[in-house]
């Protein structure tokens, strides 16, 4: 194992992307993710890559679309308001079945909102990134090490399934430093015979396109895409269980909320409360099965979120409301304290 170094979450994403073979980055400055762009600006010229500060988030995602069309690994990063602007491009990437890695280091909203951490783009990431029927693979790291690992994983999944993988982080994870090992296993990228790299006069032309004026044809493409989504739901779900073996109360939390919850769970255990946690690592596909299983034995589920209650809907769907699911939250850039979560756990125990 390589020596550990102390690194910011945002920088870990950039470093991991380079390790994964990404040589093209397009972005636009926005707090709290700007370190990704700054890191790329410094590194890319030294390794023959491209860093380009685009004129807008919209231009950046379309530059990503252009590079991806040629089959190369490419990424952009932003924070909440910027991701809204990228929505158009995300929909086109989906419609044209192009792989890409997009990072959202979330901040509070709506509107200009604030610059402090948030998880209030959960719906946007898992359901409504843009118009039309589509999904992105949504990966939710909860440490600097995972920021890096899931970036590598994101590129691989994006290539495998020809779609966007999104890292859904937040301001805390982007800004914090933790020790990280930069040893990655990088799988080679798959062949991309569909890429528009010039025909070399050796094959019929390739077309990257999301326009299908015949409804029968467009419907067929949507059905095929959703067949692929089913495969992903079967094979790519990731989650972590913490102290769930004997749990009577289950905490559901991802990202920074899972770290706060862990403190609260450890404290509650000291008080004799049997509480555990299911931490989704993929938010789409959502880990439905573990919640269904938990609902067979726990008496309540507590969804801890930095939002007005977004993931809680997936938790309820996953466990089919077999047990009460309640919310413990702070919003607008505030983070629940371990004490707040502990109190919510104790309230459920009563």
């Amino acid at each position, binding site marked *: 194992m390589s020596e550990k170094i102390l690194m910011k979450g945002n920088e870990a994403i950039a470093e991991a992307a380079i390790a994964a073979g990404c040589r093209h980055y397009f972005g636009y400055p926005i707090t709290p993710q700007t370190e990704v762009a700054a890191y790329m600006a410094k590194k890319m010229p030294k390794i023959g890559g491209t860093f380009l500060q685009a004129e807008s988030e919209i231009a950046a995602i379309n530059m990503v679309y252009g590079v991806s069309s040629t089959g190369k690994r490419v990424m952009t990063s932003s924070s909440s308001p910027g991701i809204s602007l990228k929505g158009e491009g995300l929909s086109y990437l989906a419609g044209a079945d192009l792989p890409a890695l997009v990072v959202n280091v979330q901040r509070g909203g709506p509107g200009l909102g604030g610059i402090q951490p948030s998880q209030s783009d959960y719906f946007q990431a898992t359901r409504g990134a843009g118009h039309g029927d589509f999904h992105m693979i949504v990966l939710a790291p909860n440490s600097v090490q995972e920021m890096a690992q899931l970036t590598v994983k994101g590129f691989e999944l994006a290539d495998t399934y020809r779609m966007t993988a999104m890292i859904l982080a937040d301001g805390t994870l982007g800004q*914090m430093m933790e020790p990280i090992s930069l040893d990655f296993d990088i799988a080679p990228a798959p062949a991309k015979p569909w890429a528009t790299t010039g025909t070399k006069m050796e094959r019929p032309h390739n077309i990257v396109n999301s326009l299908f004026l015949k409804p029968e044809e467009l419907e067929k493409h949507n059905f095929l895409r959703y067949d692929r989504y089913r495969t992903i739901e079967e094979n790519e779900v990731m989650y972590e269980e913490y102290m769930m073996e004997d749990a009577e109360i289950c905490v559901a939390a991802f990202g920074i909320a899972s770290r706060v919850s862990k403190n609260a769970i450890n404290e509650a255990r000291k008080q004799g409360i049997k509480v555990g946690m299911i931490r989704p690592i993929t938010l789409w596909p959502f880990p439905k099965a573990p919640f269904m299983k938990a609902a067979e034995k726990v008496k309540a589920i507590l969804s801890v979120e930095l939002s007005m209650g977004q993931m809680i809907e997936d938790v309820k769907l996953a466990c089919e409301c077999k047990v009460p699911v309640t919310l413990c939250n702070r919003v607008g850039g505030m983070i629940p304290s371990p004490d707040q979560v502990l109190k919510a756990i104790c309230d459920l125990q009563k």
Partner: protein
Amino acid sequence: MSTKQILLSGFGGQGILFAGKMLAYKGMMEDKNVSWLPSYGPEMRGGTASCSVIVSDEAVGSPIVSNPDVLVAMNLPSLDRFEDSVVPGGMIFYDSSLVERPVKRSDVVAYPIPATKLAGENGFSTLANMILVGKILQALGEFDEEKVLNTLNKVIPPKRAEMIEANMKAMKLGAEL
């Protein structure tokens, strides 16, 4: 104690983030679990900067320090804001050349250090932060000169290597107070 939760706070530009990085790095190099989390805001200089550092034998949960074992206050607003949040029995280090009042609480150990004044007198006026770091490590029983120097070599990038000596001097000065 297996976990130290440290909160550092002061004006932007006083080296709060770097002081925190030094403490985190030293912990990491001793195979502890560590985290470092800055406050971030629109202002680059002036304003208030703070930084949460956790050094622990166990995996770090939340990286946010709300009830520090150790508070470092480099200005009065920081002491005003965070004094009450320190755990009973905790430690408060503050720059007594800038903070004009004593610590009010009696259930914590207060370390008034005239860091800015000492830094100016000793020819490294920008290193008041490192005088405080030296004192903190000494008070925690962790000021091992060799380990501290190893950490400095890691934290300070090679192109600023000439800064290592002054930083070391400042920390030693703090440790010897």
